[in-house]
């Protein structure tokens, strides 16, 4: 589904990603871990099509197509979803209006008629239950005045509505209390299907108790320095990131 090959990228001339290679198959959940500043969010930004990140080398193939040549909105319509680390507020634009516009853009792309108002509201109702979101939230302006937890739940809610093929969740667990964390994780688990995949970016192993990854990658200094099964997350939780750093530095010296 997604093949990243030797991806290098810079922000304002500073190299952030220094050669990432990664393959994600349908149905897989990949966890991306690593200390602050290791390049996790930058990788997510490149995949979503953020223009301030400049790709300097390498390629990304998504469903057999060159992802990097696609506009951000087309990536979305092709099934890539980014759960934002810091969801953006859009004052005066209701969630209903926002998501209806998004859904109908997706439908247009798929050659489908736009959803009627009543069908759309039904869709919203169904998904609200799925992610246990307060029904008032959907009537408010996009993220405006939402608490940190509400914003994160709102990301999962939007994901549930858009049903992406590849969802990238950028530190969706940060700032969540244990109940919100459980709800977010449950939402993700309910949305898991054999043909869709997830990249879960997180600092902590905590989220991975709820969302069981197939593969865990550890990033450090713009590279994936370790890839293993879910037990790697536990090891990291126990030992911290320092041993990884040491390992990497030693290998460079050697």
């Amino acid at each position, binding site marked *: 589904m997604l093949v990243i090959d030797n991806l290098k990228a810079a922000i304002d001339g500073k190299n952030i990603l220094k050669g990432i290679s990664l393959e994600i198959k349908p149905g897989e959940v990949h966890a991306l871990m690593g200390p602050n500043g290791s390049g996790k969010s930058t990788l997510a930004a490149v995949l979503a099509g953020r223009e301030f990140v400049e790709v300097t080398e390498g390629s990304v193939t998504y469903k057999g197509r060159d992802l990097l040549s696609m506009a*951000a*909105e087309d990536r979305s319509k092709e099934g890539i*979803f980014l759960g934002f680390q810091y969801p953006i507020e*859009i004052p*005066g634009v209701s969630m209903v209006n926002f998501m209806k516009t998004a859904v109908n*853009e997706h439908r247009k792309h798929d050659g489908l008629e736009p959803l009627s108002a009543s069908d759309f509201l039904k869709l919203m109702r169904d998904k609200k239950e799925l992610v246990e979101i307060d029904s008032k939230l959907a009537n408010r302006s996009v993220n405006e005045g939402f608490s940190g937890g509400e914003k994160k739940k709102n990301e999962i809610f939007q994901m549930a509505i858009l049903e992406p093929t590849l969802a990238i969740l950028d530190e969706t667990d940060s700032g969540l209390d244990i109940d919100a964390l459980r709800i977010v994780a449950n939402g993700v688990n309910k949305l898991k299907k054999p043909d869709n995949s997830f990249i879960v970016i997180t600092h902590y192993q905590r989220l991975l108790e709820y969302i069981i990854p197939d593969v865990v990658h550890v990033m450090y200094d713009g590279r994936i320095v370790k890839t293993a099964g879910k037990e790697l997350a536990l090891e990291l939780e126990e030992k911290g990131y320092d041993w990884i750093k040491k390992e990497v530095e030693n290998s460079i010296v050697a």
Partner: protein
Amino acid sequence: MEKDQDKILSDVTSGEYKYGFYSDIEMDRIPKGLSEEVIRVISAKKNEPDWLLEFRLKSYRHWLTKKMPSWANLKIPPIRYQDIIYYAAPKQRKALDSLDDIDPELKKTFDKLGIPLEEQKHLAGVAVDAVMDSVSVKTTFRETLAELGIIFCSFSEAVREYPELVKRYMGTVVPYTDNYFASLNSAVFSDGSFCYIPKGVRCPMELSTYFRINSANTGQFERTLLIADEEAYVSYLEGCTAPMRDENQLHAAIVEIVAEKNAEVKYSTVQNWYPGDKDGNGGVFNFVTKRGLCKGENSKISWTQIETGSAITWKYPSCILRGDNSTGEFYSVAVTNNYQQADTGTKMMHIGKNTKSTIVSKGISAGRSQNSYRGLVKVLKNASNARNYSQCDSLLMGDRCGAHTFPYLEVDNQTAVVEHEATTSRIGEDQIFYCNQRGISTEDAIGLIVNGYAREVLNKLPMEFAVEAQKLLQISLEGSVG
């Protein structure tokens, strides 16, 4: 990254006016220039009574003594008043009995504008008084309104049929001495709308007028007079588009509203005159005096305006709150793009006791435009317990435009409570990307964000107008990609 954003914004905001066409209709016009003689000709062509001619001449003589105002934050090129044609009317063979009698060319223009009269008659209960240049061509729904005693007709017709009403109210809210452009209008006004809602009558439909400039070099001098008698209610809509022109066109209208005891008037405008091309050539100069008088107790006047057009806008729809417990409201969205300039706002004059006013102004500036809010809240000595709430927001797109706020406060009564809030924000790259990531294109994202920003004001518009206004906001800012 800043540069990218500016490029996106400039790409999507450098659109050109979409309603640039004009129709080829036989015009009855007089030579250009302004003099007492010209005013006499206008008055004679309209078969006006002597008192009205006197009013025009008095205004003209006063206008000669005045200078164009220069206090607004506008750069206005010199206007050659002697090069303007002050009267043009579509030629009519005889009075029109039915729609079939309308000139086919004129009919086509209406169709292009999307206002086929016969269909509009049935649509949403809106009565349409279509003004093309200076003379009202067709007024609909008259019979229905007449049954309730409501008068809704062209100004000229009102002068003929209801001279007493016109005489009693004309110039009482905007005197002919009021300002330079008001004096000019009072001297040369061509036509406009007249509306009278009798005591205790709630007008059952939205009243609407479409204004349209349609003749090269012809200034448009509309005059509207709207009277709501005691306990009456009316909602009035005014909207316009104008054809593409190279030369500047002067538009100096007057709107006067009188609300008697317990009466309520809602006046909504969508203004979309030709704004000039994207290099700042041409466009309409829109110098309008709009004022409402809350004459009686508990009366209420509410202005809502969506201003997207004109090269230069100079406009301050105001309320004189004379009646005790009267209420004035001003809700405005003003969009400027390319080289447009707008200096617009309101005046709220609190004279009566317990008077209330609300001002919500939303400015949106893009391109190299300049957008100013100018507002005065004045509380007179005897206006005890006056209340005002003002909110002035500015939204900037790109870094070459300007947004300015000039709020004036004059409070002479200690019991007054006056609040003012102001914000300035930018459409952020983050907001646009968030929309992109959900599958919404940059153009649609800007439309969504701008409409969200202006929602408070758009919500005040009657339903059928709100949809149109939303589209207009998006078109004004997107143009080439809309």
